[in-house]
């Protein structure tokens, strides 16, 4: 074939297919062993621990951050619950205070009202007594005036002085009617 002839011309010697040239095997194996051993050592000692370390560190960091976030969340929830409890306590305390204040004020005003009413009752009674006394006095005055007037009327009409007892009895009878 033309290509084979060309190979021989270019290579300058009778060369088989290059990948099957057995005289190159020793050199290739020698360098392969050195390079591959170096690569293996590089990978196992340097590359993989370093890259693996980076990835592990990141995974740990993310895990730590997540658990810390969870902790903060729980704390926040607890704080919120405590706040709401305090709020509810304060509200119930305020309500109790308001209720007792209201009750006390109502009792106070009741008591004041009662004393006031009693005082008014007393004054009313006294006023009624005064009225009754005044009335009795007035009624007594009416009798004597009527007796005097009746005696004077009788004396003018008849010209004779009536007895005091008769006039008094007659006035008493008239006042009783």
């Amino acid at each position, binding site marked *: 074939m033309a*290509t084979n002839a*060309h*190979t021989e011309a*270019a*290579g300058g010697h009778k*060369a088989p*297919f*290059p*990948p*099957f*040239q057995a*005289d*190159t*095997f*020793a*050199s*290739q*194996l*020698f*360098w*392969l*062993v050195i*390079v*591959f051993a*170096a*690569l*293996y050592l*590089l*990978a*196992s000692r*340097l*590359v*993989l621990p*370093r*890259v*693996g*370390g*980076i*990835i592990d*560190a*990141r995974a740990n*960091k993310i895990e730590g951050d997540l658990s810390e976030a969870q902790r903060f969340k729980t704390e926040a929830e607890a704080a919120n619950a405590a706040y709401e409890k305090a709020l509810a306590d304060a509200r119930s305390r305020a309500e109790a205070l308001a209720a007792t204040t209201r009750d006390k004020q109502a009792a106070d005003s009741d008591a004041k009202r009662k004393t006031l009413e009693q005082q008014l009752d007393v004054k009313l009674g006294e006023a009624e007594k005064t009225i009754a006394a005044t009335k009795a006095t007035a009624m007594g005055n009416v009798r004597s005036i009527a007796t005097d007037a009746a005696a004077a009327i009788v004396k003018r009409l008849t010209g004779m002085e009536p007895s005091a007892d008769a006039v008094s009895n007659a006035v008493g009878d008239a006042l009783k009617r």
Partner: protein
Amino acid sequence: MGDPIHQFQLKHLFSLGHIGPYEIVFTNSSLFMLIALLATAALMLIPTRSRAMIPSRIQSVAEISYEFVANTIRSTAGKEGMKFFPLVFSLFFFVLMVNFLGLLPYGFTVTSHIIVTVALAMLVFLTVIVYGFYKNGLKFFKLFVPSGIPIIILPLIVFIEVLSFFSRPISHSVRLFANMLAGHITLKVFAGFIVMLSALGIGGIIGAILPLALVVALTALEFLVAFLQAYVFAILTCIYLNDAIHPGH
């Protein structure tokens, strides 16, 4: 330069002398192995220097590479397979890097030489055997005796299992070698058509458009193949290691 085989020729750069009857030569293959080593080190170590909690883009590439290989092992060989993480990682990145470097202009494809892929496959094969017997003792032979098989056909099954076990390093190495070799030959052949046709004048230049388009498409395909073969090599390694860890089927 139209010869599609010429790209696989090893070039002597300098000689280190002899070990026994064998001359140890630093070749273009050795150079690209070293570049692959340095490229892997650069990719994995330079961006991770700062060990940033929030990774830069290039640090993400290093971390994704790590996670990719780690997940491949975990999904095929389980948690116990992670003790072979450095091995699988090294195999994956070595093959990946030399495959990609071979696609660069003037690049040399280390994995287009069967001695390299055979050596890597034998490393995996021997690791499986040594670790299999070390961990399971004689129970490692259960690998060849699937449970729940009628006694009549058991010898046949054991024969097939043994045969498939020992053909593993062959398929493991030849798959990678043949893929890289064939891909690069195809690329070179179609690229050669462009040169040949365009030398024929204006009609040839128009005719060269089709192979040019094919070469562009094939180059993209070869990048896929370069990654895929590295991944296949790594995942087969994991599957074989899984047999050493859990020999019962």
